């Protein structure tokens, strides 16, 4: 029994040839991804230096994993929690592969599968917007070899999860079969992306554009959008629902709230200034990115706007262009890991624009075509290769985290007498202390001591209830805003110290007899 089939689609390519091509794509993408992931993994523990944020997310993943809720301190809806829930789900990988590492180093290993998926998706999205195989490979290589990616792709950032899910949403929205449930899944993936890191939501118009283009001249377009919206809204609504069920949707006395957190993020959070004003936070951040890799940032920004005129590349270019405009808006807050979301779209836009230019060259004059192409390729390689070589070699060879590893080892082995005592540390070392057996509620994040009333309540005797403080550059950065931490630093003596002068990590015993 069957329905009448009128328009049985006639496959232009015989099925066997189609399989061969699909397999060739798969092997190519897998091979390139394997190379890039190897580069990412090489020296992943040594470079770049562990950042506070990495420790924060890891600690939150630890809290999820151990059933302590969404964070080990009061969860205040600062970010949606899906990314560190995923991180918690991946934590078995480093535990199985390299049990001896410090917490942040081990956590980075859990990012490798995430990055592998991201690289494959860059290839897939490139192919699905209609780029030839070489251009898709170019997108993957541009993305993967950029020193900026080799640096930030190793770190534990929520943005890495978010951008992978958003690339997934894009790939699903571009489904060649135009299947209704692929579109619903695209909506779901976009929702997971936003719930991994809320800032990725600005890229949603790009996914909608991809969906719009893909469903063009199709009888099922309204249904496609219905499917996408239901996926997006229905998965996305679980987050506000969580807040509602806990009675924490609206701001009120004595509890945190989702809307209150949004008000803070959108309104009260001090901006990092304009990227054009020299000396502003945003400007110095931009310069630090440019220091790692100016090539992908400049070429990508140009390609994003140029790509807007090319129908095929337009969705990806739109994503890149939106991200550029958001970064350039004056007075907004620009986080350090913002660029993680930007890179894959830039890479695809660059490859897409190059592919369009190559395709536009008249193919009749083969010799002339190569006469244009060959010098252009050589010149580009000559300009880019030395820069990327320097950047990538730095990523593969430098060990910036030795002091942290030594401090962690000291805390684990040399300071057993302190267990049971109260230790104040930065976010990076927090999980190392907990892993070493210190009771979690006796290890305190330094800024919570001053900023979280619940933590301050655990120290009825004030700073004298603290036994040790581990001083790190992050802690010393802004001493005036944290009075208790400053008091602890002045009234303590160094018992061990690691690393060079400017990045020194000191284990300090608090002198309880001192008069503050």
């Amino acid at each position, binding site marked *: 029994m069957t329905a009448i089939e009128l328009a049985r689609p006639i496959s232009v390519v015989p099925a066997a040839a189609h399989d061969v091509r699909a397999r060739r794509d798969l092997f190519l993408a897998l091979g390139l991804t394997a190379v890039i992931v190897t580069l990412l993994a090489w020296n992943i523990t040594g470079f770049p230096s562990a950042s506070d944020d990495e420790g924060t997310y890891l600690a939150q993943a630890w809290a999820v994993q151990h059933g302590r809720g969404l964070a080990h301190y009061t969860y205040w809806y600062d970010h949606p929690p899906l990314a560190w829930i995923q991180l918690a789900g991946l934590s078995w990988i480093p535990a199985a592969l390299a049990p001896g590492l410090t917490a942040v180093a081990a956590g980075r290993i859990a990012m490798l599968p995430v990055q592998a998926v991201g690289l494959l998706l860059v290839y897939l999205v490139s192919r699905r917007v209609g780029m030839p195989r070489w251009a898709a490979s170019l997108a993957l290589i541009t993305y993967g070899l950029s020193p900026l990616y080799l640096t930030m792709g190793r770190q534990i950032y929520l943005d890495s999860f978010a951008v992978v899910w958003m690339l997934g949403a894009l790939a699903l929205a571009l489904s060649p079969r135009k299947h*209704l449930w692929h579109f619903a899944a695209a909506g779901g993936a976009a929702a997971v992306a936003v719930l991994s890191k809320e800032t990725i939501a600005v890229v949603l118009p790009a996914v909608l554009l991809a969906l719009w283009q893909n469903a063009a001249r199709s009888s*099922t377009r309204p249904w496609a959008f219905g499917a996408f919206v239901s996926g997006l809204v*229905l998965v996305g609504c679980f987050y506000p629902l969580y807040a509602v*069920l806990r009675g924490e949707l609206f701001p009120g006395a004595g509890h945190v709230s989702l809307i209150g957190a949004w008000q803070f993020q959108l309104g009260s959070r001090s901006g990092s200034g304009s990227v054009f004003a020299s000396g502003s936070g945003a400007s110095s951040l931009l310069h630090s990115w440019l220091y790692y890799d100016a090539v992908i940032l400049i070429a990508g920004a140009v390609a994003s706007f140029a790509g807007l005129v090319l129908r095929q590349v337009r969705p990806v270019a739109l994503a890149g262009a939106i991200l550029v405009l958001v970064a350039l808006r004056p007075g907004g807050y620009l986080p350090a890991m913002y660029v993680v979301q930007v890179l894959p779209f830039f890479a695809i836009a660059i490859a897409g624009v190059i592919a369009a230019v190559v395709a536009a060259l008249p193919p009749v004059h083969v010799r002339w075509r190569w006469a244009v192409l060959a010098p252009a390729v050589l010149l580009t390689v000559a300009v880019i290769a030395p820069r990327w070589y320097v950047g990538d070699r730095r990523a593969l060879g430098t060990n910036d985290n030795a002091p942290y590893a030594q401090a962690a080892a000291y805390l684990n082995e040399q300071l057993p007498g302190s267990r049971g005592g109260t230790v104040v540390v930065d976010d990076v070392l927090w999980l190392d202390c907990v892993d070493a057996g210190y009771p979690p509620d006796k290890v305190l994040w330094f800024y919570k001591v001053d900023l979280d009333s619940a933590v301050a309540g655990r120290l009825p005797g004030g700073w004298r209830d603290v036994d040790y403080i581990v001083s790190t550059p992050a802690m010393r950065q802004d001493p005036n805003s944290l009075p208790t931490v400053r008091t602890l630093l002045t009234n303590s003596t160094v018992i061990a110290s690691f690393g060079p002068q400017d990045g020194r990590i000191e284990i300090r015993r608090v002198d309880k007899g001192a008069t503050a």
Partner: protein
Amino acid sequence: MVFVSVILSAFAAVTLWWTMHAWRTPETLAATRFAPPDGEQHLTFSLLVPARHEQAVLEHTVQRLLRSTHEAFEIIIIVGHDDPATAEVADRVAATAPGRILVVTDHNLVKNKPRALNTALPYARGDVVGVFDAEDQVHPELLEHVDHAFRATGADVVQGGVQLINFHSSWYSLHNCLEYFFWFRSRLHLHAKKGFIPLGGNTVFVRTDVLRRANGWDGTCLAEDCDLGVRLSSRGSKVVVAYDSTIVTREETPHSLHGLLKQRTRWHQGFLQVLRKGEWRRLPTLRQRLLARYTLAGPFLQAFSGVVIPVGVAIALWANLPVLVALFTFLPVLPMAATLLFQVIGLRDFGKEYDLRIRWHHYARLVLGAFPYALVLATAALRAVWREYTGRRNWELTSHVGAHLNEAVPA
């Protein structure tokens, strides 16, 4: 609670998946249409029109059937011996087209639709028997399309589309129309593809020899259409579904809520009877048997979940459940809300396909009426179970006033 939620959401998700079958890809959508006829006419048709207390609409229906562009068909009107008003109308219409129309009187003491059809079956001379209800508005070109569909596919059964049109009549008619839209536009095609199909009550065409071999309809079954489909499926007959909004048969919704309730009770009870008869056990593959069991029990699951899900959500919101458990109770709401969203899009599509003006308040009515309608369905399901349990298996007739005839429909 978590367990119930997971089961309910799985059920709702599967139902949604199947309901959306036709729109999965542009190709599946294209495959659900009738092939355009080739202009040739090879088959002869006997069109059975059982009429009981249908004097108000019967004449109009038969007149439209007579306008059919197909050359070779006869109309057999079946009237009850105790229903002189309808018989009078039938005789009057028959006189206008002698040779085309035959009036058969049903002398069965207990009257119902399958018995009326069985009464007429020996008189049928055509290659193909088609069934229409007395209130149906049949498109003149339908027979030509069906003729072609039989020949093009070698089918034993062709099920054409039926559509309720008077969506504006009441709050429930909107939902009722959309149910038909999704059923004929989409879901039935899936059943045809999987080889298990509960046929519709009209615009269904069966090869006369196949029908006679199957001993016609089951005179004791309340859902004789569903039963016939199940029996023919089990015997391996080839069933084809073809839908085209331009030649779909138009019907009206029951004109009162009570009428809808009675109709739905009858269907549900009929489905239960078919389930209990167990003909579906003869289906060749396990998947088909599972699909059969699921489809026949479906109305009850649907009725149950339509009520339980909102209640569960209310409990989650007001009772002090642990947050994770409460989140789980919202799981079935996902497919349910998605279904509602697709219904909104379906309403838009429905309006476009049938050239009807859908206003914003119709959408509002659709959303607001979803839960009350689920309540009606649940009531009907409970009533069906109760009647079957207490052995009350008589036929509750739905009466028709002809609300759909007022629609300006170009012939």
